[in-house]
């Protein structure tokens, strides 16, 4: 019977005792309310159960079919990055009191989770220069869409302007989301590797709720946030900045440059690439938007004895109370990943995060210069963080296939999203050694000349 499954403790005796107590003779009686015409006949047509030792073998085989960054230096970025994750992170988030816990709705037994989120919120505020941050969102892309929706709802205007230098997936999701309330997401063209401010000025009007830009942008370049803020402000539009939190270790906080909402993904800090998810969106605003922020927020308070404690607060905004008037329908956050990110930021610390960002800048700079010396063209005009665009004499797909044979995972092909033929977006993180970079450049040279 059931005792062949280690997650099902009921023995035949247990079942018999319960059935007797219920005055029934079989479990089937408990399912009599399901009409016969819709009852499943036979068993589900899915693969049979695999005992643990065999399942471990199978999953290992599946995993080995994938080429991973431990064995192939990876120069792919485009929103997900190969950064070092300090070993403490995994150990701490593997504590089952954290990962098997539910949302902290009963604060008395969830102070650990609540405090950890409070600390996360604080760190996000510090990096972004904003007043308030929530406990995380699904990912950076959906955070951006939520930010746009918030801007539209607050300003009661019907359009947002989003730079083409914002991640293509962000823009795609934004278009899908905008279809709900029915606002428009209008794209602003590029001037080389950054947003075209002239076009932005032209498209800006009194019906624009917000301008959305990325920092660093999709090509790694740093946008002129000051200039962009000015254009937005003139017509009373909000400035939404999608920012890489690692870059914020050294780059000026968007909050100090006039951003109204700062969003992004914490993946570069403590979260594995994991084939694209789960990652961890963040969402930060100024005080005036505090009560409009979507998702869960942890606040500090005290108990009757005056002891400091933490609770989920401002819940009246959330879906389970506002229901059809909720500002957003988000229920889950990415709590465990927010915790992972907090632990990573704590491990790196105030100085370490700056050192790590510095390494990223230096490695990318070195690679770009080395490529230039070999005659390759670097497309970026603006200064860049840890990503840049290199022009190739052959299609990127072809080059990447050859790089793979040389044991390297090459960069992102900009053709399908941008129509940039033969242009590759390269990410160089602190994980890339000088040897790996040199190896890439040599391999590239060989491919191009060979």
């Amino acid at each position, binding site marked *: 019977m*059931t005792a062949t*499954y280690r*997650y099902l403790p009921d023995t035949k005796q247990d079942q018999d005792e*319960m059935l007797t107590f*219920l005055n029934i003779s079989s*479990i089937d009686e*408990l399912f009599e309310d399901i009409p016969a015409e819709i009852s499943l006949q036979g068993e589900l047509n*899915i693969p049979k159960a695999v005992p643990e030792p065999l*399942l471990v073998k199978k999953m*290992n085989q*599946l*995993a080995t079919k*994938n080429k*991973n960054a*431990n064995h192939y230096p990876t120069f792919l970025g485009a*929103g997900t990055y190969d950064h070092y994750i300090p070993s*403490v992170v995994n150990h*701490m988030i593997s504590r089952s009191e*954290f*990962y*098997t816990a*539910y949302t*902290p709705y009963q604060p*008395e*037994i969830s102070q650990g*989770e609540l405090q950890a*989120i409070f*600390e996360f919120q604080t760190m996000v505020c510090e990096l972004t220069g904003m007043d308030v941050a929530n406990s995380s969102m*699904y990912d950076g892309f*959906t955070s951006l869409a939520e930010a746009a929706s918030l801007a539209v709802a607050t300003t009661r205007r019907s359009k947002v302007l989003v730079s083409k230098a914002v991640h293509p*997936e962000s823009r795609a999701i934004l278009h899908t989301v905008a279809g709900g309330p*029915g606002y428009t997401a209008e794209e602003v063209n590029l001037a080389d590797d950054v947003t075209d401010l002239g076009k932005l000025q032209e498209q800006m009007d009194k019906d624009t709720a917000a301008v959305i830009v990325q920092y660093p942008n999709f090509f790694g370049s*740093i946008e002129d946030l000051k200039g962009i803020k000015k254009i937005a402000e003139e017509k009373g539009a909000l400035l939404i900045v999608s920012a890489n939190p690692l870059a914020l270790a050294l*780059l*000026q*906080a968007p909050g100090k440059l006039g951003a109204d909402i700062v969003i992004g993904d914490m993946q570069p800090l403590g979260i594995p690439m*994991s084939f694209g*998810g789960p990652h961890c969106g963040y969402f930060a605003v100024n005080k005036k938007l505090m009560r409009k922020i979507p998702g869960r927020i942890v*606040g500090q*308070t*005290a*108990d009757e004895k005056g002891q400091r404690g933490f*609770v989920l607060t401002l819940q009246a905004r*959330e879906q*389970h109370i506002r229901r*059809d008037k*909720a500002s*957003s329908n*988000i*229920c889950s956050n990415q709590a*465990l*990943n927010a*915790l992972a990110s907090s*632990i990573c930021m*704590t*491990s790196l*610390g105030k100085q370490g995060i700056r050192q790590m960002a510095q*390494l990223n800048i230096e490695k990318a*700079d070195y690679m770009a210069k080395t490529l230039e010396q070999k005659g390759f063209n670097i497309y970026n005009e603006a200064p860049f963080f840890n990503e840049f665009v290199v022009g190739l004499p052959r299609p990127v797909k072809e080059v990447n296939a050859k790089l793979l044979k040389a044991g390297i995972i090459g960069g992102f092909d900009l053709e399908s999203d941008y129509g940039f033929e033969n242009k590759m977006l390269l990410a160089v993180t602190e994980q890339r*050694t000088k040897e790996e970079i040199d190896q890439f450049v040599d391999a590239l040279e060989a491919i191009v000349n060979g």
Partner: protein
Amino acid sequence: MVEYNELIFEISRPGRVGSSIPDSDVDYVDINEKFPKHLIRDEPAELPEVSELQLVRHYTALSNKNHGIDNGFYPLGSCTMKYNPKINEDVARLEGFSRIHPYQPVETVQGALEVLYELQEELAVITGMDAVTLQPSAGAQGEWTGLMMVKAYHAQKGETRTKVLVPDSAHGTNPASASVAGFQTITIPSDENGLVDLEELKKHVGSDTAALMLTNPNTLGLFEKEIVEIAQVVHKAGGLLYYDGANANAILGKTTPGQMGFDIVHLNLHKTFTTPHGGGGPGAGPVGVKEKLIPYLPVPRIEKEGDKYVLNANYSHSIGRVKGYYGNFGILLRAYTYIRTMGPEGLRQVSESAVLHANYLRKRLEPYFEAPYLQICKHEFVLSGSRQKKLGVRTLDMAKRLLDFGYHPPTIYFPLNVEECLMIEPTETESKETLDAFAEVMISIAKEVEENPGVVLEAPHTTVIGRLDEVQAARQPILRYSKEEVVEEETVTS
């Protein structure tokens, strides 16, 4: 256990280092020369400065102030707090799964794509649907995705249907998702048995009905026996039927939403399929559809060409992207591992045990608490604290008293149509002894309410902290730590 009440910022000391960063092996770059001055940080972000041991002690102490399934029984109705298998955690951490980039050439990630493809197929079978998308990262996102497809479907037929119907027992995400998708929500009152009132439904269904959102069993734990008729009413009016999969743990291997007549389904993998709740996330909310809705599925789709797995975004009627990349791969992987662990007989026994446990526990508790619905329940049941309320004790107080016994309380005050509601979902992974022990504690609390209500009203007594002032937290929100505020507080209290 030493009491620990510090924030990480409060134990920081300037100059302490928590990790080791290699020296640069390339040339130094002066950022002041590379970037314009106004784009360089003028002040470092005030992140903590602690040693690795301090970090470990801090988070270990925090974990000791937290209660997970591994600590004790967690009968939260509607959340399916079942055991989170450890093999799933090991698999998710394999370097071949965690160290791969979503944009790698598909030939280099065939193992990952195989997992996703097979999971799609299996979830389709389990739900009786024709196709599945794994993109949505939570139930609520799944709902919204499903509703956006509903919208596209009707628009394609040239129809503008603006209303989504939900029962009054619906979870808050249902009307919220409908609203975010641009619909208006109409609430249908339940009948006295807690089920959808078919006559009321007929009154409200019309040519402007886009969809009816239901969960079956419903949030009261009751199976909608008239589901086939309900489906007919909605379909006849041209509407679609949406299944909120929150309660799928009751029906695995017994029936499928597809057979019931649903057109779209979302599942909560962090409920039914054991992926860990993580303190509030991450989760995954895959969506299944019947054939007529396939054109609208999000892209890219994971498909098989011969024996190769590929990504295909070539679907012009797709609603587009709903989430980055392919969904929460790490979570999807855990669910896949669970389904392989259980197989078809195992999953069926999951539901059978879950339902047996719920009925057993309910019968044990019925003499002591008001049970608003006396028919067979499925995997969860509701009780009302109305008897105790007459004696001056509320469900909230009893929930807090349960904390003293090491239990996480059941869901309280939901669904909204039961007074002083307690929703209890034991799940199948608990032993009979656990159920009996919990029943005995609940009974003892019911006795305390009669004989010594004070001990319940002032609960909890043994937790690290007492009831917190949530009013103050909402009136004057303190949402982050800041050194300046600490100084202010000290001045105020002195």
